[in-house]
């Protein structure tokens, strides 16, 4: 059969391509070391990575783009080591990706279907973007099919499925209230397969590369946490690896962005930093070749790798708005109002008690003074 023929065809390894591209052995080893380090492997892991990239044939990859802004792709091709873009993106058999592929129209569709058929059960599916569903399914159509149909089709033969970025992992901005297109993260569309979630808007390029290299090297999914994120990159909060953390513990907070203490590196907690509730590797890996990350540039973390981060605003205050009470409301304002109303009610009750229960209380007082004998009471009354 046709697909068996293609399957057995010996294809090239990543290393073969690297040599052809003009990288030398040293560059290649540097790349393997960098990747192993990002993946949190021990020193022997470098050999495993190098060996896999040398010997194993490149996997077929389908990269789908649905409701997204392409920032994930951007982040990926700008990851620090040039070989990431050159090898993993240019040269892995990226059989279909709307943004970067050469063919278009029918040719592109043909390439997609050939890959799906010839590599059934083998290809890696990378999904960027959320999927509109229900009545709104037609909000994202490619080649006459809805994103939902396409995703269901391509997911079927995928060996592994990766949700790139917050759109695919949790819906991101288009799923924020009121979610007009019923944008849905892919794990809610494809329910019968494990989805590797790599959230972030965008995710860090090195993290994305690390996930792919892990799958190439070990031919299995990276270890995932309970919500499906690779543990190597998402097990710690930004807050846990933040270099401003000593200021947090010392209670030294930036009050406003023009505060001189902002320059001194005080903690950005009070101007809305979401580091304490955000799981990501920004504090360690940083961005743009390890140059910086938002907190280092003086802006709090907005929690872009967390589900619903658009609905947990406003970004510039610690306390989010109170659910259901709209902007300008927060838990403290509403709590204080509730306490105030309660106190007013209790005061009113106390006043009414003293009026309405006056008799009972007087009786009690009389009881104490004169005892319980009615006669005695009456005689005392007369003398009064």
């Amino acid at each position, binding site marked *: 059969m046709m697909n068996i023929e293609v399957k057995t065809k010996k294809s090239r390894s990543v290393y073969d391509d690297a040599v052809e591209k003009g990288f030398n052995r040293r560059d290649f080893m540097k790349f393997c070391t960098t990747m192993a380090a990002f993946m949190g492997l021990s020193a022997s892991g470098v050999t495993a990575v190098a060996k896999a990239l040398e010997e194993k044939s490149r996997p077929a990859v389908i990269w789908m783009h649905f409701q997204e802004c392409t920032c994930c792709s951007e982040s990926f091709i700008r990851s620090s080591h040039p070989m990431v873009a050159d090898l993993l993106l240019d040269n892995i058999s990226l059989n279909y990706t709307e943004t970067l592929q050469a063919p278009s129209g029918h040719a592109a569709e043909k390439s997609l279907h050939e890959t799906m058929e010839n590599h059934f059960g083998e290809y890696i599916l990378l999904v960027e973007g959320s999927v509109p569903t229900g009545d709104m399914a037609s909000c994202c159509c490619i080649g006459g099919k809805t994103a939902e149909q396409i995703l269901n089709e391509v997911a079927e033969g995928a060996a592994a499925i990766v949700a790139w970025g917050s759109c695919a992992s949790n819906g991101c901005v288009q799923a924020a209230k009121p979610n007009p297109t019923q944008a849905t993260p892919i794990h809610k569309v494809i329910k019968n397969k494990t989805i590797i979630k790599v959230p972030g808007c965008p995710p860090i390029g090195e993290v994305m590369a690390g996930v792919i290299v892990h799958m190439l090297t070990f031919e299995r999914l990276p270890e995932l946490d309970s919500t499906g994120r690779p543990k190597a990159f998402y097990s710690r909060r930004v807050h846990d690896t933040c270099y401003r953390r000593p200021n947090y513990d010392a209670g*030294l907070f930036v009050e406003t962005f023009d505060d001189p203490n902002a320059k001194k590196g005080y903690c950005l907690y009070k101007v809305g930093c979401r580091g304490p509730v955000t799981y990501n590797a920004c504090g360690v890996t940083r961005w743009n070749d390890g140059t910086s990350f938002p907190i280092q540039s003086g802006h709090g973390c907005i929690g872009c790798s967390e589900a619903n981060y658009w609905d947990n605003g406003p970004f510039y205050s610690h306390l989010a708005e109170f659910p259901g009470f709209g902007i300008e409301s927060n838990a403290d304002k509403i709590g204080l109002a509730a306490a105030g109303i309660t106190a007013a009610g209790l005061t009113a*009750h106390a006043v009414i008690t003293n009026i309405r229960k006056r008799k009972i209380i007087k009786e009690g007082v009389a009881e104490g003074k004169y005892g319980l004998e009615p006669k005695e009471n009456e005689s005392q009354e007369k003398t009064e």
Partner: protein
Amino acid sequence: MAIQPALHTTQLRRVFVFSLSVRLFHWINALSIFVLAVTGYLIGNPPALLTSQEAYQGYWFGITRFIHFIFAYIFLFNFVIRIYRLFFGNRFETWRNFIPSNKGFFREIWQVVRTDFLFTRGHLVSIGHNALAGISYLFLFILMILQIITGFGIYAAMSDAVIVDLFNWVVPIFGGDAATRLWHHIFMWGFVVFTLIHIYLVFYHDYVDGRGEVSSIFGGWKFVESDTMKEQDTTDYNK
């Protein structure tokens, strides 16, 4: 104005209502809620105490959090002991005082509403908690459970302790750390409102009924009218 003789014989009988363990629970709980609410509020709204310092010069925020976590454990274990007493406590302490389990309970709620809020005459026939108070403690217990699970849920990210890891399931249910933390903050106000009402009503009953409501939580004794003791036989939902 003429002073009316008492309408009913108020011969008082001393009843031992709250055992030591429940009284201890009450005060440890009150202290921990106070400390947790104050430190929690500070964690949510840290005041600008210091400026132009360097981080190595202080640790007050770390200490505030530390106190919060210590009392979180006290709060938890104290509650666990109380839960035990819900099943193995005396008849004024068991779950039947908090969960309506028969008609008498609802009748008593209505009676309390009439005397406390509609200001009709009449006297309470309950010896331990009255039924309405019982319901309010049920709400408190639920609030405590919510506060414990959200608190330990967000704490799970910072600790590998076995007890804390038992709460790993919480955050996904609330939809992320941010939402869990927000609810944890909101629930604090639940404790504030409960405490206001609770303290007021206890003083109210102490004042209006004169049966030693306040002192019962210190010494364990209440003073109950003898005829109430008889009536109690017919209305005691707690038997």
